[in-house]
């Protein structure tokens, strides 16, 4: 009967894929605890992050904002499978900054953008009601 341990023993015959699989964890450097984390195979300037329970709402806007950072070489997002509640963002930066910094900056920049739009909306709304009443 093939058991799990037996299966493991058989593994070395398949060295190529096994090494690839085992190398992944050493380069895996998680930065964050909960919703998002970098996926295996990251280097300081190039990493993929996985966001749980996020979708196009955050992904597309975040991708755009990160791409506006001149120190970012590449940024894209994907939803690998529609029935998994996951969204991944790939960030590659030039030397001088890290992918994590670029992600954090992207998040903060998007927040600032939200602030500005809120202010503009409230301002426009006040101007509109002032114009309507006068």
């Amino acid at each position, binding site marked *: 009967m093939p058991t799990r341990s*037996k299966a493991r023993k058989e593994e070395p015959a398949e060295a190529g894929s096994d090494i690839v699989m085992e190398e992944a964890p050493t380069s895996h450097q998680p930065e*964050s605890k909960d919703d998002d984390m970098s996926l295996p195979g990251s280097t300081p300037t190039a990493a993929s992050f996985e966001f749980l329970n996020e979708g196009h709402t955050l992904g597309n806007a975040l991708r755009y904002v990160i791409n506006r950072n001149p120190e970012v070489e590449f940024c894209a997002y994907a939803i690998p499978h529609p029935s998994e509640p996951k969204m991944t963002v790939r960030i590659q930066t030039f030397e001088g900054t890290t992918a994590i910094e670029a992600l954090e900056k992207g998040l903060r920049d998007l927040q600032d953008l939200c602030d500005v739009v809120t202010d503009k909306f409230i301002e426009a709304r006040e101007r509109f009601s002032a114009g309507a009443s006068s």
Partner: protein
Amino acid sequence: MDFDPMVMDDAESLGPVVKISQADSVRTKFELSNVDISFANSLRRVMLAEIPTIAIDLVEIEENSTVLADEFIAHRLGLIPLNAEGVESLVNSRDCDCEGYCEHCSVRLTLHAKCTGDENMSVFARDLVPTGERLNQVLGTPIVTDSEGLGPLILKLRPGQEIKLECIAKKGIAKEHAKWAPSAAIGFEYDPHNKLHHTDLWYEQDPKAEWPPSEYAEWEEPPQEGEPFDYDAVPNRFYYNVETAGNLPPDAIVTEGIKVLQQKLAGLIHELTEGEGGDGANGDYNGPRSPEYNTGADGFGGYTTPFGNAGNQSAWGGAGGTTPYGTTPYGAGQSSWS
């Protein structure tokens, strides 16, 4: 890093601009310009699906002698818009310490009607009465906007029929169920002349003659005769039409929508910065993890991904009996299950 995310590449680098063309208690029409389409769409999506409101979620039916089935009535009750003012101070029922529900995470409404006359009787949303403790005096009250003050029709009773029930309204978002949607509809359009060719207009002879112009068509310059297609053009002006279902004022839908987006970001920034200090953040973390840690070996066999078989079996075919999904209880031949 010295760049301003708000400054666009356009000639008028003023940052986002909002222009309101109509605003009343039912709808807000506005134009958002100088933002990217990705942000404009995020705002649309978040307003549509992620603003918390309150809706009936549990119904306990004590007496129902109407012709309608219990679950049918329960469904109708769920769809009745309730006033969501102050819903932010309501606790999400799943996060509440109570068992089931309590006054911190729900609003109780009762409905009791009996047709005693000899004509059919209609039961309206105004007959739903909020009872018990409430966070404020309006939260959870059914929205009544018609001139007679009746609200939506729930059901009708024949003489002698009776309906008696108790509802629990909870906080939620439209992503989970559309009954929590704050907006009846959100109009979103850009490029009214279809200069960017993002749409293919269906036509029999001539799309120009057959398609009515958008109401925003006169806001933008129509394309010149024989104008070459601009490959670099990007949409820049977005027209929203936010119509409320009554539970939140239309302006509040917009501001709340941006707020939800910001809360999302704030949560992520928090997690990102929190996690940086402690190394191996994934170590003692037993929530959702990145795929490679879900190896079949530690009992996670049920749902490993192709990447998840580190020391165990390769997804690409090591031991016999593995599936591409790793060591499923069915695939590994023998496992702790047997």
